């Protein structure tokens, strides 16, 4: 199985889970969504970073 392919494939679902969680926190938790949305960017960045890491691994 190609790891890079897998990493980019799971990105969507993970982003979806994070988005759902932030909206749930908006509904029930202390933080409104307009305060927490940067988490989405951070998670996306982390996922891209992991993907980049696996590309280097398979490349070397």
């Amino acid at each position: 199985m190609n790891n890079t392919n897998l990493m980019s494939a799971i990105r969507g679902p993970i982003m979806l889970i994070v988005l759902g969680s932030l909206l749930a926190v908006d509904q029930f938790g202390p933080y409104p969504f307009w305060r927490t949305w940067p988490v989405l960017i951070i998670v996306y960045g982390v996922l891209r970073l992991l993907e980049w890491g696996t590309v280097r691994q398979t490349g070397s």
Partner: protein
Amino acid sequence: MRRSTIVVPLLLIAVGALFLINNLRPDLSLLRLVARYWPFLLIAWGVIRLAEISISAIGADSSTTRGMSGGEWALVALVIFFGATIQGAMGLADNWSHFGPIRIHGMRWLGQPFDYPIPEQKQDAPKSAHIIIENLRGNARITGTGADSVTVSGRKTIRALRQSDADAANKQSLLDFAVQGNRVTIRTNQERVSGGREITEDLEITVPRGTSVEVHGRYGDFEISDIDGEVDVDSDNAGVRLQNIGGRIRVDTRRSDIIRASNAAAGIEIKGGGQDVELENIKGQVLVNGSYSGDLQFRNVEKAIHFESPRTRFEVGRLSGQARMSLGDFSISDAVGPFRITAKSKDVHLVNVTNSAEVDVKRGDIDVVSTKMPVPRLNLRTAAGNIDVALPAQAKFELHADTRRGDINNDFGEGLKQTSSGRSANLAGSVGGGPLIQMETLRGDITVRRAGAGEELGRNLTPVPPKPPLPPKAPRPKVSNLEVQTQ
């Protein structure tokens, strides 16, 4: 060949079932459940897709491992749109409570509301009693009167499936009203009822004027007026309106749509969080510490104001005019310094601030209008933004202005010497000698000019810029059963 996701058929079945149940059993109010818990649909969706992808990755044919398609994202957007719409509609239609951690209490939304009147009860109480009111959910209006007694009346609403359940819950949660010496307690005892039946109580309470009042709640508004003693409000989510309070005021809310106090003879301390804050005619010191996302307005405060939020700090010695703060804007007029503000990203407008003013912003324009003599000592710094200072024509001051990248415009030609090198410019000198005015911007223009006649007028009420667009979020339900008056 690529197999499509299982989520789409599941979603179709779920939507069909939802509408069918809603049509057959409208009393279950399933839409209300959807309005509340729809974000978990997105989480479940993500989990299912993650599982699908992992399974196909482990399986033999790795070429089927693909991410989410554009069409699927469009469907996600559609779900968010409908979820937020239903949530908004339901939020307006119903004033359910929402607080605390996640509570999966589907039962809470079942059933229908039953109303019970709370007949008026009256007990004598000392004039300087301490009154403790605990009402977890619901509004309370507390008014001071000349009488020597405390009266309580109101209305209780219990949401339950059957009348008998509601009756039982009503009996379990009878109002406690006790006077012990100097202490009066009024408890609604809603926590005694289990089984997820929701109780809200709206209370009308009158107390002797000289009492001090302490209220605790989780969700609901408090309106307190004409009390000479101290007032203490503590709630997870409350609109708080206070008027004619003689003693010290303390308000602690985790959330709130508005905190308003007018005519307070002593100090006021506000902490926690919320949206709007409005304070007017306060004779004592004002302390605000917390995060408030709406508009903040201070008017006529006779002692110092200290404000501190995660992003902004400001303090001022006294305020005969007003100060107004929104997300990206701060304006203050007719204040006695020392005034100081530190903020990350705000445009700052000062009109007739005396003594001294110190402004330090990371991003934002600063403008100062001073039409009175003597001019205040100014220290204005912004990392990115223009600085505009208007002083009376006969002003006497010393000046030192610096911009790393920008121009300097000077109306007070004679004594000020301008030098520029490359992109930076510098203006320094003395006009008759006087308080020091220091200005520094890394990127932006600096203007020193003569204030026009009447320039301070009309600028006192700098319009607050429109709020940034809100996320897909429903308007918070407002509790307004008491027909709280707004001015």
